């Protein structure tokens, strides 16, 4: 299963990079006469209300979505894991303060917080990356901290300390390699959710801004044509579904390999 999803992800990644070459038409080639055409030889996935080729738009949107997801998760990873490891390793006041901040952020449902951030800054690609990145930072912090705490009390770390090993050495040689597992699993899962979040934001018109194509916005536009052009709502949604599914399956497969203990509910409580 992991191999299948990995292959699928590779395909999606390639599509994202080569979308511009793969696309048969231009993203905004309007052709009012040929509007609302069902899937056919010349338009594999049909056309939308302005006659634009849906296949083209779905392919190009892949790029934007993945870009945003990767950038946002990278941000969340760097900030969150650093904060989590520092809090878990140093303990004391540092831990208390950092975790209270994380708790406050956790008090907001994901989409709500993202919306709030978008409300503050104008909608756009950068804002979307920042919003999703900020919203996903707490969970990386929690996962990193929990792992750090559990590794820190392992006997092999204790013995190392009693032998005089310095803190930095222990951090680098014992803590980081042993928390890599859960953190990597979380990265894959967060990528999946980031794509969903970006799609939701774009759907609401607060994510990727037109005329850039985005799966979410395509679904929004499809709403008015549900009974006339089912292909407008099915294909962009399917694209989101397949991509998210691939990341989820991959993350699950990784989890089975790297960290079987993550499946417990106590982890769920901490990770929300």
């Amino acid at each position: 299963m992991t191999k299948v999803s990995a292959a699928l992800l590779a395909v999606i990644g390639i599509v994202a990079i080569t979308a511009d070459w793969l696309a048969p038409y231009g993203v905004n080639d309007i052709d009012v006469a040929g509007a609302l055409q069902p899937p056919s030889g010349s338009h594999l996935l049909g056309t939308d209300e302005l006659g634009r080729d849906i296949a083209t738009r779905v392919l190009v949107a892949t790029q934007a979505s993945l870009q945003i997801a990767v950038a946002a998760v990278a941000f969340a990873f760097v900030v969150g894991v650093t904060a989590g490891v520092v809090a878990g390793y140093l303990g004391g006041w540092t831990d208390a303060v950092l975790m209270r901040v994380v708790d406050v952020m956790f008090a907001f449902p994901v989409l709500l917080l993202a919306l709030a951030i978008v409300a503050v800054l104008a909608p756009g690609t950068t804002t979307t990356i920042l919003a999703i990145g900020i919203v996903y930072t707490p969970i990386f912090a929690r996962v990193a901290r929990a792992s750090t705490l559990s590794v820190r009390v392992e006997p092999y770390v204790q013995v190392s300390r009693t032998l005089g090993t310095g803190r930095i050495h222990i951090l680098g040689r014992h803590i980081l390699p042993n928390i890599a597992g859960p953190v990597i699993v979380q990265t894959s899962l967060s990528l999946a959710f980031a794509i969903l979040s970006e799609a939701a934001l774009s759907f609401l018109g607060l994510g990727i801004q037109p005329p850039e194509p985005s799966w979410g916005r395509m679904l929004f536009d499809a709403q008015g044509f549900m009974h006339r052009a089912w292909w407008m709502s099915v294909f962009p949604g399917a694209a989101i579904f397949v991509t998210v599914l691939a990341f989820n399956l991959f993350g699950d497969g990784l989890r089975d390999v790297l960290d079987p203990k993550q499946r417990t509910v106590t982890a769920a409580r901490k990770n929300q």
Partner: protein
Amino acid sequence: MTLVKTVLGHPVLRFLARRVLYSLVVLFGVLVLVFALVHLVPGDPVRIALGTRYTPEAYDALRSESGLDRPLVAQFFSYAGSAATGDLGVSFRNGDPVTLTLADRLPATLSLAAVGILIALVISLPAGIWAGLRRGRLADAIVRVCSQFGVSVPDFWMGILLIGLFASTLGWLPTSGYAPLAANPGGWLRHVILPGVTVGVVAAAIMTRYVRAAVLDVASMAYVRTAKSKGLPPRVVTLRHIVRNALVPVLTITGIQLATILGGVIVVEVVFAWPGLGRLVYQAVATRDYPVIQGAVLLIATMFLLINLAVDMLYAMVDPRIRLS
């Protein structure tokens, strides 16, 4: 003083008092964040809010009405103070008191959340338990695949497809709108089904995985082996020992999920034109109506905290290790 003594003496009350205190601290943080929203906006929020209706008089009026001409800290405490008494300011757009607007929209969201979590429980509890008890077998695989799919589906896509199928094409159910439960139960049901299913199915997918994990955890415990070694009928082992013990963590999950739904219904409400808090937030964000955004976010975050607190209380009541230490 005697109240404090009673609380400190009783382990459950002590535990709860700690949790309440902690929630208050977080709530304070939430307030600060919410307050900061308006002031983080680049540019002038009043000017943005007025948009094309800008005139120097309107600007001054709105500015002083919103108290934006006073020092920051004073504004914060004034805001916090009024919020505590239920006054959350007035909408930039139409001047309605925010609290009233929120109260107006709350029942719709609560309906949706309640139906959603109910559907989620009805699906995820049996499915998760069933899968957990039959680990590695076909039933388990089916449940896991289904929940993987459910977790990966964007909820607004599912909503659109459902509308497309049941409302537009088949015409069985209305495409959008809401009818209050008290006034029109039949209508309420007809309107709440599609959005409720949308919310519920996605939540069910998420919860099934956790229920399954909880059952797996418990099933591997030594006391389950003891129960089997007593030759108890399998139903007793399953219900009294496995499920009963797994329900404790499942309780936590349900609380978390309910709280998540409250924030996550935004998109579903937009798709179904459901007049709830979510749609309100969306409209407010689109029109930069900051007082409404602040008020709604504060309300939702507070409900979130309250639900978590309620789950903690139930936990303390159900687990004898906390009750009687």
